[in-house]
């Protein structure tokens, strides 16, 4: 069944994603950490879909679609910011900091 170990692995991967978002300053790496968190959630959905029915696998389908759309738009925004500041480091992206 592997439900318990899957949930544990999912928790560990999600935590690694959160720590990555907190410690890195590169906007692209931040996006990759968000993808890691989405993958961890997908693993939870798939682990539970063994027990609770195939609706969970359909949800994973939707999460993947949203992640693909998010990556495309997010990377376009990073591209536009890079053109403006010549950097993807968050410490240089402080126009709204007041």
């Amino acid at each position, binding site marked *: 069944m592997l439900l*318990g*170990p*899957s*949930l*544990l*692995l999912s*928790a*560990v*991967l*999600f*935590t*690694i*994603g*959160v*720590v990555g978002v*907190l*410690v*890195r*300053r*590169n906007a*692209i*790496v931040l*996006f*990759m*950490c968000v993808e*890691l968190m989405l*993958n961890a959630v*997908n*693993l939870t959905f*798939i682990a539970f*879909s*063994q*027990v*609770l*029915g*195939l*609706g969970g*696998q*359909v949800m*994973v*389908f*939707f999460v*993947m*679609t949203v*992640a*693909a*759309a998010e*990556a*495309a*738009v997010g*990377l*376009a*925004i*990073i*591209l*536009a910011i*890079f*053109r403006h500041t010549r950097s*993807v*480091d968050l410490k240089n992206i402080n126009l709204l900091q007041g």
Partner: protein
Amino acid sequence: MSAEVVFYLLAAFAVVSALLCITQRNVLASALWLVSTMFSLAAIYVLLQAQFLAAIQVLVYAGAVMVLFVFVIMLLNVGRSASDIRGLPVRVIALLVGVGLLVQLFLLSRVTPGSLAGGVGIPAGAGSPLDAFPAGQAGADAPALQGVVGAIAEPLFRDYLVPFEITSILLLAAAVGAVVLAKRRL
């Protein structure tokens, strides 16, 4: 080798790759370690009886999305830059947040239908969770009856048809938005 041994090997590989992904200084190496994590997760999906989603994981995530990331990294030429990992105070705070979150998620994963039922005074049901959830039993039988893809296609196009159509609008909006944002001038 039993499925458990394979699962734990792949899980260890996924966790180590994820840790390397967030600690590598080179952004490109970071992206490639993330691809490695996604491949391990795809293999784990096969172990969890989700073969179609494993294929989609490799095609969409490890393929399309990560190629987009690598493309942008190479386009911006930010691969070899100074370290962007924050200083010691932030690292300590991040570690504390991470440990707290991990403990919370671990406690949450201990909650089972049986323990919830025990909490409200109903005797915890014995036996497999598949007995408690008829949909789960139907879901477990579906791949044998309809094939792996058919078992997902049926709920997707029957119960989730409207969300599926809305997803196509979302993708169209994302494609148009990405072009508009990345273009120099319209």
